[in-house]
């Protein structure tokens, strides 16, 4: 379907690292996940987590932030090399999201994406579905989050083959 190694099953891309500050954790949680262990550093000490930690949706959203930035870099490099660029579309959803460890205030989390494969998207000609595994690790190299993502992608070559 494509010979671009970026889409080969097993291809692992480190997306980058993100530092979770107490302020950012509280700002996100006040808006979207106002539970005391995400919004109140003092109350969080008496919670099951023992300290202020990020909303699981905050941890997940940062994967998307770094993923989008990496796709931007990939686009630029691909254009520069004179190769056709794929077009990314919406996502039908995610599966098997696991919050494995709390992401505490002050920690730096490193995110990655592993390609699982590309399959045809039957209901829309020219579009495929790219399946990936998202994962992230703390400084102790403990996995803190993982999930399976899917995204529609129009791979180069489809237009000329159509």
């Amino acid at each position, binding site marked *: 379907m494509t010979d671009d190694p970026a889409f080969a099953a097993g291809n692992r891309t480190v997306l980058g690292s993100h530092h979770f500050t107490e302020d950012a954790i509280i700002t*996100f949680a006040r*808006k*979207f*996940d*106002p*539970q005391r262990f995400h919004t109140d550093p003092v109350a969080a000490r008496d919670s*099951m*987590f023992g300290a202020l930690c990020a*909303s*699981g*949706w905050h941890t*997940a*959203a*940062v994967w*998307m*932030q770094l993923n*989008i930035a990496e796709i931007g870099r990939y686009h630029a490099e691909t254009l520069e090399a004179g190769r056709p660029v794929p077009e*990314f*579309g*919406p*996502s*039908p*959803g*995610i*599966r*098997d*999201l*696991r*919050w494995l460890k709390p992401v505490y205030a002050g920690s730096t989390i490193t995110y990655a994406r592993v390609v699982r494969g590309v399959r045809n998207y039957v209901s*829309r000609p020219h579009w495929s579905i790219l399946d990936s595994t998202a994962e992230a690790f703390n400084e102790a190299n403990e996995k803190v989050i993982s*999930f399976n993502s899917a995204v*529609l992608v129009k791979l180069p070559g489809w237009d000329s083959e159509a």
Partner: protein
Amino acid sequence: MTADADLIHFEDLEPGTTFSLGPMPVDKAEVIAFASQYDAQPMHLDEDAARHSLLGGLAASGWHTCAMLMRMMADAYIRRMAGEGAPGVDFVKWRRPVLAGDVLSGSSRVLTRRRLRSRPEIGIVNMRHQLVNQRGEVVLESENPVMVRIRAPDGDLA
């Protein structure tokens, strides 16, 4: 602060128990603000580009919709539940675009529950969540387990 006994416990979450979510308006400025930070793609940022995308209009990032679901769940029941967190989410299906100007509402329903052998004071409750827009169209479906404290760990419970 609510007394612990008054919180929603495992015993209260019989299969079929349902909590109403929302309504929550989807504000255009917030769609753009969330996407600018976490999901900077044209269909979430720019009305013209969005109109020509597969989504057909300025649409919230799916992650933003998840975050809005979380807020609606927190307001509806999580903040008065003896909860011990959620280990994850089985699936989220973004079924239809959530467009700026939409109003979301929905429900969280208990599917099944079981006690944990390893932690007798905790039970796992599997929940199904659904969000609809103002036309009643399903925009998001999700299921996930949540850990909830048992009010009387020694008590008899189905």
